[in-house]
């Protein structure tokens, strides 16, 4: 069982690399969907395991929520937003893709360097999984930094959220149920608010290029 | 009673002797120029004449202008009281302080400078302004010199200082006193409007300092101003004479005869200094005004060197 989780954890990391490599908004929303699918599989495995051993249902419920929200609803909503704004298709990044990929790789190494010797989590699968998922968080931040468009930021934020979720999942088999639920509520509200903001930004600035919003200085 | 005697004596000597110094200097200058020159007593005649003359007062002026001559005269004379000329009568505990003297003279100078501004005349302002500069440049060296002497004698009392100097064996043979003597001599040149700082004998706006200030005075007022200036000059010379050319008979003499002898010696010394001043006047030219600081600096350096000779290098 653990082997599959290891593989999944690696796959999730790789999917964020793939996300980073995407140039267009549409494509990275789709990649995000794939990542969500991977996470839901991991959650499903964990859920089944915990149900089998402890008769706990909470992780399964979480898994279902992930499928509904992250695999279905959020990507759909982002696509819709994107379509509504009718932004012409274009590249959306600051640096070269190879540079970004290399930076992601460096981040993974860095995370490994920093985390691997921390007593208590420096051994076994836990270590690898934590390194992988912390790297996902980091890559998420890097993703936000590297995208100019508002939607890119939202996706980046979602990747961070994914990374966090994976970390909790692997390290502690999920937070207490109520906390997990709360996080979901927060996330969904957050995404909705950001979505509304995107519309407003488009309204006021005639584009969702965040790089244009620089009037508040000093 | 002794005080009154002392004051009377001092006053009479100063008032009587002061104009003579100018006469001597004038004679020296004339002599060097192969002229006969005015008589020794010319200033006495002038004063006599002026006292009788009508006073012209500028209609711009205020009471300052009127009281100034009196204040200049009285402060000079009062300061003169403090600097003993020749006396055995020096009262015990007499508060005759050199700093007091200098700041008393300052009172007169204040009014003289203010009075010069009072008429609104350009010349008055010019003289006043120049006097301001010269006096402030001369003051440091004067004070350093006298205070060095005060340090040596352990008191700032004028008579105390002179008493102490009396015990020194021919001071002018010691480097420290030579320096101080020269420094004060330069100060006298600056303070009493002598060549090379000022030319008392011309009325050219380029050169006037003291004359410019008293330009608007006339009659009695002018006489008082002139007399005050002469007393001040004699006072400074007295200081030099009694500090650096002390007389064994200066103090501790009782009896009229001895006092008269020391008075005669005093007059001789005053004449000696007057001759020196006259010679300096003769042998130099009037400096341009912006060179006055050089003289002041020279004087300051001399006085400071004197101080250092005695206190720092000497020990």
């Amino acid at each position, binding site marked *: 069982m653990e082997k599959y989780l290891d593989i999944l954890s690696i796959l999730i990391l790789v999917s964020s690399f793939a996300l980073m490599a995407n140039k267009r908004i549409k494509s990275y929303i789709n990649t995000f969907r794939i990542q969500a699918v991977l996470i839901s599989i991991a959650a499903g495995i964990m859920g089944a395991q915990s149900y089998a051993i402890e008769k706990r249902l909470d992780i399964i419920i979480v898994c279902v929520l992930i499928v509904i929200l992250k695999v279905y609803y959020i990507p759909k909503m982002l696509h819709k937003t994107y379509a509504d704004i009718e932004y012409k298709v274009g590249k959306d990044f600051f640096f070269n893709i190879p540079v970004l990929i290399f930076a992601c790789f460096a981040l993974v190494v860095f995370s490994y360097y920093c985390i691997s010797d921390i007593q*208590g989590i420096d051994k076994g699968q836990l270590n690898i999984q934590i390194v992988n998922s912390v790297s996902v968080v980091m890559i998420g931040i890097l993703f936000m930094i590297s995208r100019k468009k508002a939607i890119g930021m939202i996706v980046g934020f979602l990747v961070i959220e994914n990374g966090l979720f994976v970390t909790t999942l692997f390290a502690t088999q999920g937070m207490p149920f109520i906390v997990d639920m709360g996080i979901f509520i927060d996330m969904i509200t957050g995404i909705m608010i*950001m979505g509304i*903001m995107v519309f407003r*930004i488009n309204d006021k600035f005639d584009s969702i290029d965040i790089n244009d919003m620089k009037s*508040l200085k000093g | 009673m002794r005080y009154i005697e002392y004051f009377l004596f001092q006053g009479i000597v100063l008032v009587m002797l002061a104009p003579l110094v100018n006469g001597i200097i004038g004679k020296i200058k004339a002599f060097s120029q192969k002229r006969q020159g005015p008589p020794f007593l010319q200033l006495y005649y002038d004063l006599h004449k002026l006292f009788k003359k009508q006073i012209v007062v500028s209609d711009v002026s205020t009471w300052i202008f009127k009281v100034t001559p009196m204040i200049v005269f009285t402060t000079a004379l009062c300061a003169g009281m403090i600097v003993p000329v020749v006396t055995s009568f020096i009262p015990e505990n007499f508060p005759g302080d050199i700093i007091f003297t200098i700041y008393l003279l300052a009172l007169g100078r204040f009014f003289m400078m203010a009075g010069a501004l009072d008429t609104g005349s350009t010349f008055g302002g010019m003289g006043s302004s120049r006097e301001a500069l010269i006096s402030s440049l001369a003051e440091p060296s004067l004070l350093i010199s006298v205070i060095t002497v005060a340090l040596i004698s352990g008191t700032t009392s004028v008579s105390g200082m002179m008493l102490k100097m009396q015990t020194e064996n021919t001071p002018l043979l010691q480097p420290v006193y030579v320096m101080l003597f020269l420094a004060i001599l330069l100060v006298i040149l600056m303070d009493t409007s002598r060549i090379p700082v000022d030319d008392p004998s011309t009325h050219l706006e380029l050169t006037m300092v003291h004359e410019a200030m008293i330009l608007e005075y006339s009659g009695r007022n002018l006489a008082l101003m002139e007399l005050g200036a002469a007393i001040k000059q004699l006072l400074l010379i007295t200081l030099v004479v009694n500090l650096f050319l002390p007389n064994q008979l200066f103090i501790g003499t009782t009896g009229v005869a001895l006092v008269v002898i020391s008075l005669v010696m005093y007059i001789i010394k005053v004449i000696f200094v007057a001759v020196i001043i006259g010679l300096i006047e003769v042998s130099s030219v009037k400096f341009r005004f912006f060179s006055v600081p050089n003289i002041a600096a020279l004087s300051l350096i001399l006085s400071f060197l004197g101080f250092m000779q005695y206190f720092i290098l000497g020990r």
Partner: protein
Amino acid sequence: MGLILWAAPLSAILIMFLTKTTKAHHIISVLVSVIEVAVTWVLTYQVMVEGQIAYGFVGKLFYLDAFSIILLNLVVIVGMLAAIYNIGYLNHEKKNGEIDLKRIRLFYMLLYGFIFTMVFALTVNNMGLMWIAVEAITLASTFLVGFHNDKKAIEAAWKYVIICSVGIAIAMLGIVFLHISSLGINEGAGILDWTTLYDNADKLNGPVLRFAFIFILIGFGTKAGLAPMHTWLPDAHSQAPSSVSAMLSGVLLNTSLYPIIRTVSIVNKNMESSVFTGRLLIGIGLISLATAAIFIITQKDYKRLLAYSSIEHIGIITIAMGVFTPAAVFAGLFHMINHSFTKSMLFLTSGNILQKYGTREIGRVQSLIKVLPFSGTVFLIGLFAIGGTPPFSIFASEFSILISIFDNNNFILGVTIIGLLTLVFVGIVSTLFRMFYYNNREENVTSGETNKYGVAVIVIMLVIISITGLYMPEGIFNLMVDAQNVITGGI
């Protein structure tokens, strides 16, 4: 009792939604905020008597001790004052036609959502829920920041929500590690509760705990406005409506510091020394202080300037917590209270100024005292207070902090702080004081206060900060001592 505390704002939101007149909104708003204060005071009394209280439906979900009750008091009192202030503020906006009834309703609903989340964050015992509440604060306040709905406001709101969300996400990572460090110790009910974590602090996994602390510091620090994560703060504070700025600066920052301080006491107890947390906190605090100082000197916008000043004061509090001697912690707590009142007062006043002059630019405001006799005076005095002039309360707490630092023989730190504080004050003086002079420009404003309620509020606050500079009621004083003990774990 404790449930009313967050039931009240929730019901306020609901009633607001149903009522249709502005007057009703105002009344409900004030009423609810008064209820909040009343309830909090009852709870405070309980805490004073019992030391701590725990309540809730499932297990003991909510927990209050001296530390959280003080912050809670700040939230509700500043909230109440802001509520009174809002009456005049919104009426004036409405009169000028800038907003309509619907937007007032929205404003109030969001505001009470904001207050609800803050109250929730402070009362909840579980760290995970606490995190949720803090994230919810961001979400609730996003539209408040962007309330004016112009370009700049939208930009500020966007930056606010993005940066804070990222920050909070990092904090979540910290909480996860915190959780990891506590694995195997407190399974079951008390998992991730402050109380359990603190009680079992010495059994936690030290290295992981430290790692967790880094993320918690950065994460919540972002929300608390610590440099270099402060960047959202000046934008949001300057663009939000003034009463919201007051709440953001006066209350939100404290609420965001709250989990950091809690974690600090856990980490310190675990490590039995404050060196690790101390270095981080003092370092970040100093950076905040320095950043604020540099930014204030040539600031042109008075609300931004006040925002930077908030960064400065949060930095000072952080430094005090970093020193972590009882005296320093006590002073730090005191500083939290003082900064809360003083800064809210200044922001509320700046709202009056903004409404009068219609500009945030310092250079375009003049003869402030003549135009706004009360607000101007309060603003001026407030500036001196915020700069640390006696006899105002900020002075007392700043001085206490400095004393504790010097007592700790940390001279270089102390001197640096004094230097930076001076620089900040110099900055305030050289920029803001222009507003009080008459600059011989044509007046386009009529003199007279526009917001009578607001004036009353700021005057009350001025009285509070003046008195507490020298006197503190015995009860509150003891409460603060208790709170200090809660943090440092003494007696």
